[in-house]
């Protein structure tokens, strides 16, 4: 008694989902299935402890509207079921380099070929590597149900550790990135116990736009895996905006500016270590945008 549905259109998927999540006796939750790389690993653990695992799935991988990257005016839309491999292969402006660098560090190639951007944000892990680059890009989440469409900032869509504002009858359709200046550059740095196939201990995404006079016109800094939800460092951004991008800035990245983070103590690292590592990664990221010799100062 397990249900597996694989609709070929968004409309069909939404009406199926609406029916399944309706109130009353017909309610029968369907689990949305994209790459399955987050859903599936939880199965082995749950089975080992005799816990129930979802049985009924709505596979969204055959819905063409959900896959691929396109422009919508100045914005760029990434379909929710677009894989990491698709993102790496796409031609995107330098503001998206951080997202590509994150894509290249998600699991191994086998995971990147199946895992999707939509799955990464809906799963809402504090360590989701797609989230810091998307927050730095001011991403919005396009959501649809039979009731209609809505768009919410990613920053409010993710509400906590594995919690989102998605209703049971809704699908994430796309991630919407508003226009960015062609001069914006970006970078993603991830710290794990080794270089690949690891859950981030801390990650940092930085987007930087430098004016013609060498000062910082705009900067966004997000830290992942150091709070329940990846967090923008607004105070640090304000501190650096308008300043000249040179080595002296590294010293301005002081511990106090990281007090918004609420890192966990867990098997991967202590809270103290995570906070210190976040600061080092931010300094490294800044140095990366400067002349090559500055990198040593940051370490």
């Amino acid at each position: 008694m397990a249900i597996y549905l694989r609709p070929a259109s968004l409309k069909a998927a939404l009406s199926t989902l609406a029916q399944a999540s309706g109130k009353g006796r017909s309610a029968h939750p369907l689990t949305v299935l994209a790459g399955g790389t987050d859903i599936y690993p939880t199965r082995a653990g749950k089975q080992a402890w005799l816990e129930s695992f979802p049985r009924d799935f709505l596979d969204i991988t055959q819905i063409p509207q959900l896959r691929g990257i396109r422009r919508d005016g100045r914005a760029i839309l990434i379909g929710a079921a677009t894989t990491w491999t698709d993102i790496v292969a796409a031609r995107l402006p330098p503001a998206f380099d951080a997202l590509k660098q994150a894509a290249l560090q998600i699991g191994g190639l086998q995971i990147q070929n199946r895992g999707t951007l939509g799955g990464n944000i809906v799963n809402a892990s504090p360590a989701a590597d797609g989230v810091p680059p998307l927050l730095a890009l001011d991403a919005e989440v396009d959501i649809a149900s039979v009731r209609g469409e809505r768009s919410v900032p990613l920053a409010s869509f993710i509400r906590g550790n594995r919690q989102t504002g998605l209703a049971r009858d809704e699908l994430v359709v796309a991630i919407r990135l508003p226009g960015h200046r062609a001069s914006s550059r970006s970078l993603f740095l991830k710290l794990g116990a080794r270089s690949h196939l690891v859950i981030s201990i801390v990650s940092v995404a930085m987007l930087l736009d430098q004016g013609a006079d060498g000062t910082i016109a705009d900067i966004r800094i997000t830290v992942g895996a150091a709070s329940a939800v990846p967090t923008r460092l607004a105070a640090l951004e304000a501190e650096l905006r308008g300043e000249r991008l040179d080595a002296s800035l590294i010293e301005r990245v002081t511990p106090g500016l990281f007090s918004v983070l609420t890192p966990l103590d867990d098997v991967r690292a202590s809270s103290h270590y995570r906070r210190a590592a976040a600061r080092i990664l931010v300094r490294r990221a800044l140095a990366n945008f400067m002349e090559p010799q500055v990198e040593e100062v940051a370490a």
Partner: protein
Amino acid sequence: MTKKPSEKSSGASKDPTRRRKVASGAGVPSAVAAKARPTTSDMVSVSLVVNNVHHSLALDPRTTLLDLLREHLDLTGTKKGCDQGQCGACTVLVDGRRINSCLTFAAMYDGAQITTIEGLARNGALHPLQQAFIDHDAFQCGYCTPGQICSAVGLLAEGRAKTADEIRELMSGNICRCGAYTNIVAAIQQAMGQS
């Protein structure tokens, strides 16, 4: 044409009402009927091509691609290491791309072409990567080897790796408990030189 799955299933299933509410009516997309169609109460029919052989099967929809290969098709070359995406022992190629077969339902591959380690040799001649793994002694116990080789076939097709470091990085989804990494990289370099 939309065929209501519940028409067939209601007799056999233990709790037909519950299922019918979801699986029947206007909300059931026609694609569900056309592809991976629910047949009996528990089964979906799946047809796929594995190593150039066509198979049509009725499966519990939760059957992983790995279990389909090993338990239903007796293709035991593909190994189960962790069963949760961490080790790469179960790597196969789907339409030429490497994936972990343990992390995915077979029903998701209706209509796909799957290649496993058993499908790499041609007319009795080993695939260049299989030969290179032997030439370089690129294994010890051999448990990770089918996954390593299928993964490396995907790597060569992607064409992104040029240096030894890039090979190591892009093979990071495959773990070797015996630590044969040095020889695995050498074997892949040999095969790269030939292709």
